[in-house]
């Protein structure tokens, strides 16, 4: 077993073939297979004989079906694959179903393609799905498209017919910013311009379908774009005696080397690549897209799945919670304004709602309207989405791979789209400020995990809020004492302590009562909290009727996963979402007990 046969490495390319049903996709594929000699021996004869026996005319579709083992269905319900090779490379042709019912299968198939053939029947002309598929290709990011005007034999190879279709379809593609590689007049059935020029169409001297395929190129620029890696997970397999802390992910674009400084967004944390980890192979000092990799960092910073890693010296991604998008909807139920969905981009998944539907391309008429208030199945829409927390991405113009997202409705992927533009949200300025702070921040030589081990707790910010006179301060003090008695490091920070010191220059109003006008107070409080949390402390703060806006500011400044908000007393109608609600207080001890249990559950303090 030790003689090595060198494995040939042939170039591969995935091609999707799309078009309106019956416009001749199967025929074109069949012809390509026959003319390139790619069929298994006897297959063609076998299918022909079969047709004769059943006295039905031979169709290339039967051949394709035979290859795909799909006769029973009669109609391609799923994207199936056929293979053929030329000297240059191996092709995988993904046959996408033309039927609108199966648009989600078409998308599934097409999303794996590097290039596309789009078939239009010369006799029928441009139909609804010719356009829809053109649109979907552009949304999916497939920009190499050859348009085949098929069944030219049925229109007597008329140059006029051909040109009018070319004109009409070019105009359509232009609207959606797609430039096809070429148009080719063909006859699938007769094999005209599929792999060979014959004299059948004297006025056409351009490429054959095969030429067009061979001229497509594989995406090869992903390595040279800025480094982008969605963090898929952080691994620490200590249970298996492994102390490495590995940041794992698949590099979407660019490359990274040992010693490079990287930044994580949306948190804005920084780190330096210490090693590139791998199993059963020699590791190198540089890795690039599209490898699935593992990195260790020189310092132990706290980051989680969903952040995007970028190189500090390269273009920063956008970070915001408001985005302008183009999206297509596949869900059985329409996408509506009031409903909360989830958006997945990279490895991040956050709640999202529609803020505004700008216009909708109707699925049936293919007309744009700006009066629709829902997005129906198979519609394409331009809309503004608002996420519940910031996401990191690039706009599609800068980097299509990191501008993509899908929308989850209940448990299903129900839509997908691309981000066209980032829009400011209320935190934009503050966030930029925090990024600068993070970059300048001197990371402690003691990793936060070690500190947590020593103190037997994770640092946290506990915000106790509620209406006036509900005993918040009493509870805060009791909690501080209980934690202290348990051996924890906890500190109750009275607002007054901040107001007359740190805030002396802007003092003048009571801090949290008029919170909206006092975002600077909140910002300072949050920065103090950030420092104390870096020191490993559990910080307790009380405030009267904290608003959601205040929380957003605090979440931008301190690690949002370590903030516990507790509402005391009767509920208010404010928008604030708390982690814990304590309505009635019988005994302070009991309340403190509940809070403590909550902290244990969240793994902030560990059970002794």
């Amino acid at each position, binding site marked *: 077993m030790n003689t090595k046969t060198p494995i040939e490495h042939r170039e591969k390319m995935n091609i999707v073939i799309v078009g309106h049903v019956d416009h001749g996709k199967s025929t074109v594929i069949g012809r390509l297979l026959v003319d390139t000699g790619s069929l298994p021996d006897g297959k063609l004869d076998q299918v022909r004989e079969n047709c004769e026996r059943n006295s039905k005319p031979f169709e290339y579709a039967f051949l394709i079906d035979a290859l795909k083992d799909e006769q029973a269905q009669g109609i391609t319900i799923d994207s199936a694959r056929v293979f053929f090779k030329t000297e240059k490379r191996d092709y995988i042709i993904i046959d996408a179903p033309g039927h609108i019912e199966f648009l989600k299968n078409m998308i599934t198939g097409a999303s794996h393609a590097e290039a596309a053939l789009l078939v239009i029947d010369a006799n029928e002309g441009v139909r609804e799905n010719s356009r829809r598929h053109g649109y979907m290709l552009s949304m999916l990011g497939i920009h190499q498209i050859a348009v085949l005007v098929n069944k030219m034999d049925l229109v007597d190879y008329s140059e006029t017919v051909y040109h009018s279709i070319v004109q009409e379809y070019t105009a359509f593609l232009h609207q959606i910013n797609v430039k096809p590689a070429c148009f080719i007049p063909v006859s699938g059935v007769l094999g005209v311009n599929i792999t060979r020029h014959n004299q059948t169409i004297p006025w056409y001297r351009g490429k054959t379908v095969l030429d067009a395929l061979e001229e497509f190129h594989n995406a090869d620029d992903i390595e040279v774009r800025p480094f982008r890696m969605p963090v898929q997970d952080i*691994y620490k397999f200590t249970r298996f005696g492994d102390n490495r802390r590995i940041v794992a992910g698949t590099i979407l674009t660019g490359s990274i080397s040992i010693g490079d400084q990287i930044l994580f967004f949306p948190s804005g944390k920084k780190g330096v690549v210490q090693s590139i980890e791998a199993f059963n192979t020699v590791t190198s000092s540089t890795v690039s897209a599209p490898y699935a990799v593992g990195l260790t960092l020189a310092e132990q910073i706290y980051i989680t799945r969903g952040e995007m890693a970028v190189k500090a010296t390269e273009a920063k991604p956008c970070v915001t919670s408001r985005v302008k998008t183009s999206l297509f909807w596949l869900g059985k139920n329409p996408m509506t304004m009031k409903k909360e969905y989830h958006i997945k981009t990279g490895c991040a998944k956050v709640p999202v709602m529609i803020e505004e539907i700008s216009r909708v391309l109707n699925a049936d008429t293919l007309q744009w309207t700006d009066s629709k208030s829902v997005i129906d199945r198979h519609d394409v829409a331009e809309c503004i989405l608002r996420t519940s927390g910031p996401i990191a991405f690039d706009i599609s113009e800068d980097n299509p791979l990191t501008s993509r997202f899908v929308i989850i409705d209940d448990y299903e992927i129900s839509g997908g789209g691309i981000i066209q533009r980032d829009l400011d949200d209320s935190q934009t300025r503050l966030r930029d400020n925090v990024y600068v702070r993070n970059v300048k921040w001197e990371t402690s030589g003691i990793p936060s995990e070690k500190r947590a081990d020593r103190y037997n707790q994770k640092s946290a910010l506990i915000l106790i809020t509620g209406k006036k006179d509900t005993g918040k301060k009493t509870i805060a003090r009791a909690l501080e004492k209980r934690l202290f008695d348990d051996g924890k490091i906890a500190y109750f920070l009275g607002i007054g302590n901040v107001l007359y010191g740190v805030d002396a220059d802007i003092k003048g109003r009571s801090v949290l009562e008029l919170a909206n006008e006092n975002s600077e107070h909140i910002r300072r409080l949050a920065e103090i909290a950030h420092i104390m949390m870096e020191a490993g402390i559990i910080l307790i703060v009380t405030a009267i009727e904290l608003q959601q806006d205040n929380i957003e500011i605090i979440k931008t400044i301190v690690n949002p996963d370590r903030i516990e908000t507790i509402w005391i007393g009767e509920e208010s109608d404010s928008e604030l979402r708390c982690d814990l609600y304590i309505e009635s207080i019988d005994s302070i001890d009991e309340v403190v007990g509940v809070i403590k249990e909550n902290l244990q559950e969240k793994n902030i303090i560990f059970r002794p």
Partner: protein
Amino acid sequence: MDHLDRLENISVHILREAYANFKNLCMLWSIGKDSTVLLWLTRKAFFGHVPFPLVHIDTNYKIPEMIEYRDRLTQEWKLMMIVGKNEEALVDKLTFPDGAVDRIACCRNLKTKALINTLNGTWKRMRFNHHSNSYEVDRSTEPYTGVIVGARADEEGSRSKERYFSPRDTYSEWDVGDQPPEFWNQFKTDFAPGTHLRIHPLLDWTELNIWEYIERENIPTVSLYYNKGDGKRYRSLGCWPCTNPINSESRTINEIIDELKSGNLKNIAERSGRAQDKDDGGGLETLRREGYM
């Protein structure tokens, strides 16, 4: 990046997605070449570790070398090994070798039923104890909500319609006609209570790729795959009463690769040594819809 690297990286990405999204995740290990490559890819994805249990459905009729090999690797690689069985059917002799039922019904009893009830935790699971070096009843009866499987699209027709993340309902049934879309490396990782997902990291691999990768990585495989002098070897492993070796001279991995490339096996389906596939027309697809692997 060559084609094996490409396949490897996609599979690793899928495995990591599965691990990040499913609390109760397991991987089916049939001991065959595909699921063994899958196991190896798991060690790639998790830097030498296998952080979830492997589930093997033992029919009691597996070729003995397979079980030996399973337990050897379990010890060497410190695997969390779970074994499930349809003990009732074995006791009641409701099997094909006992002459009680046909091949398809036997598969249904010993494999499909055993699998479903092992995955959902209704039947006893045996877990390998690395201290005592023996199998003990597993204390956990929690259902697995993510099940990683080594299916490949090129194996046969029904598998070419699979998704990487494929939902199964409470009864493990598969709705082929209405599958979720899957694009841009985003997978269906959300699921309703009571349902689970099958995850297929090897979907894009071919039989040839599997052998090329075994060769490149030097992955240990069961000796049954190689001709030991009698001109026969197994191409696909299963239960001895229903699995036959094929005629082949290949003694080494490289000879198998050459054999596959030469096209000698081109017109012979990979599972042609598996008798149950032929028993009735749509048998396999029916079994598959019911949850068979």
